[in-house]
């Protein structure tokens, strides 16, 4: 009797598991849920969640299950184990996440060996997508904004000289290289390059900014990682009276990250940034996105470019799930994504079929005061920007030898 019950229960369980499997797609998410990147992880995670919530109809009849792993830090080691276990233990169909570039670099061999689609939702070092044929990036490369801003600085802002201050780690160096290359190609001159400490802790920016101020450039291009650094940059810029000295602060959108912008207050006014997203972009998708975000996570919160990386990444995943009818196979998934077009909150995006990197618009914006809040006014736009590093095959961005 008991045996029979067990058999029946076991049969029912097996059936249930089987039917669930037919519809369920498991997405293994690796993000730093603790440590210095916890804030970013939350943004990307919420971006993904929000897409699933807003597009519940579009996801059906499939069920997307997120399996989250904390990678803790940018050491590479924890991320590697997380990815390894997501592949071998949880048998995920798709990998997603990667805030930190070193983690994406460390994970690359496993992603390649695991033969699963891997969607990078933030990590911005340009050449990462070359490291595994299964990497697809829905975020950005440092070159997107840096290169576009170099050109815009010379042509739109009519600047002749610039000082570059950057956080001394690969994205910072990438950003410096991208900006310098296009700014100087367009007749500008970078007169000083100031490494401003590592990414681990926010330094006191005063000495670096003091040095930049003494050089009296037209522009001060700053790259710092998004987050706490940005707030300190803007404060220091204002407190040292650099605006009054006629030096414009420019940079990729990391320095006016939406989540930090309002706290900067009037100190942020006048900042000029180049980026692919900010919450004030005027398009219907973004209106809907921002509104839903505030409803979901509180009126005081705001999405930002990291959240959009997660949102668009999830859109790409849902697209693949539908295109492949829930049976995820990596080569077919890549085929489905190559040339995939999507109306994102950041405007139209597509995946470059050659590099598997994102192609998107870049917006030149200026921070102004409007209705008592800091508002990012778009003052210029470049359509369909590709990662210039891979376009021009610079250094490690050259396609890997076959």
């Amino acid at each position, binding site marked *: 009797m008991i045996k029979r019950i067990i058999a029946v229960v076991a049969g029912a369980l097996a059936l249930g598991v089987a039917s669930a499997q037919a519809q369920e797609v498991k997405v293994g998410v690796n993000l730093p849920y603790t440590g210095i990147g916890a*804030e970013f992880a939350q943004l990307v995670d919420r971006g993904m969640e929000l897409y699933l919530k807003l597009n519940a109809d579009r996801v059906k009849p499939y069920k997307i299950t997120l399996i989250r792993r904390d990678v803790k830090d940018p050491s590479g080691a924890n991320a590697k184990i997380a990815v390894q276990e997501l592949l071998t233990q949880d048998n995920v169909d798709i990998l997603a996440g990667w805030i930190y570039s070193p983690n994406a670099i460390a994970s690359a061999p496993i992603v390649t060996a695991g033969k699963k689609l891997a969607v990078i939702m933030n990590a911005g070092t340009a050449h990462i997508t070359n490291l595994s044929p299964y990497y697809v990036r829905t975020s950005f490369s440092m070159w997107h904004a840096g290169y576009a801003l170099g050109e815009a600085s010379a042509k739109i802002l009519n600047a002749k000289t610039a000082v570059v201050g950057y956080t001394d780690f690969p994205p910072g160096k990438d950003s410096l290289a991208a900006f310098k290359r296009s700014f100087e190609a367009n007749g500008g001159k970078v007169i000083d390059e100031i490494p401003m*400490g590592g990414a681990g802790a926010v330094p*006191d920016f*005063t*000495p670096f900014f*003091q040095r930049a101020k003494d050089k009296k450039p037209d522009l001060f291009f700053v790259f710092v990682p998004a987050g706490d650094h940005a707030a300190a940059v803007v404060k220091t810029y*204002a407190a040292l009276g650099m605006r009054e000295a006629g030096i414009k602060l420019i940079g990729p959108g990391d320095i006016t990250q939406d989540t930090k912008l309002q706290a900067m207050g009037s100190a942020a006014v006048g900042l000029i940034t180049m980026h692919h997203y900010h919450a004030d972009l005027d398009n219907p998708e973004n209106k809907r996105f921002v509104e839903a975000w505030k409803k979901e996570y509180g009126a005081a919160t705001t999405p930002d470019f990291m959240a959009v990386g997660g949102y668009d990444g999830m859109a790409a995943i849902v697209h693949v799930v539908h295109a492949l009818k829930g049976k995820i196979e990596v080569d077919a998934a890549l085929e489905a994504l190559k040339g995939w077009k999507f109306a994102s909150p950041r405007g139209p995006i597509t995946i470059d079929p050659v590099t598997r990197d994102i192609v998107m618009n870049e917006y030149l914006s200026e921070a102004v005061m409007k209705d008592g809040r800091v508002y990012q006014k778009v003052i210029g736009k470049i359509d369909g920007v590709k990662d210039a590093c891979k376009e021009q095959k610079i250094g490690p961005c050259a396609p890997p030898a076959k």
Partner: protein
Amino acid sequence: MIFGADVASMLLGGVAAGMVLFIVSVGLSVTMGLMGFVNLAHGGFAMLGGYAIAQAMKLWGVGFVPALVFGFVITALASAVLERLLYARLYRASELDQVLFTIGLVFMMIASVTLLVGPENQPLRLPALLQGQVNLGFTHYRTYSVVLIVVGIVIVSGLWLVFERTRIGAQIRAAVDNRRMAESLGINIGRLFTLTFAFGSGMAALGGGLGAEFLGLDPQYALKYLVYFLIVVAVGGLGRVTGVFYAALLIGVLDFTLKKYVPQGGTAFIYALTILLLLWRPQGLFGTKTT
């Protein structure tokens, strides 16, 4: 003339940075010197205090200065409770057990704050009066830095007076130099520990709030800057208020200058500097050899 303004701005910036280091580190130095307790949770108290200050301003609209007072008091009280309940049990334990305990405590502080408030940086809006630039006659400089310098000087003078001129200060000095002797003189060591610990944590909270303008404020604050605080304590000498003060100024100014003129060196200078200073004076610049 331009050179003069340059040097002035450098000194002002470095001294202001040093003041923040001093305010946070002084409590660590005294507790480590007095109790021989390796309190790695000190940065955690600075972080908690900073949060108390930021939350008071955000939720109740309290002004900056009252919020600072609130942060000091609440952190001092909380730390006094922790000291009586938990720390006191470990005074006779090995240093390494103390390390384990305080690191565990930091982990719990970070996780709790992350869960309750969230992982993001807490903006701490300064009053308009403290923003912008101030004309010092010989140069224009960041108002807040100048204010910090003044506050730092007031604090160090106050602490010096307390240490050198009051009964409790004399007791602390006696206990730092020779605990057994102090005990035999009838000083209530337990009470002294609690008081100093609470006061030191309160100072850390104050430093967390005052320094947020430069250093930011998020849960990881508890660990991010701990190395800097420890460097200041080691260079200044254990249990020396004036030692910590000069060490913080020295580190602040040298770090600032080197960063400005040789930014390519990154953080290497501060570490190289510490190594040289400690090899030259292993007991700290102002410490005395204890036997």
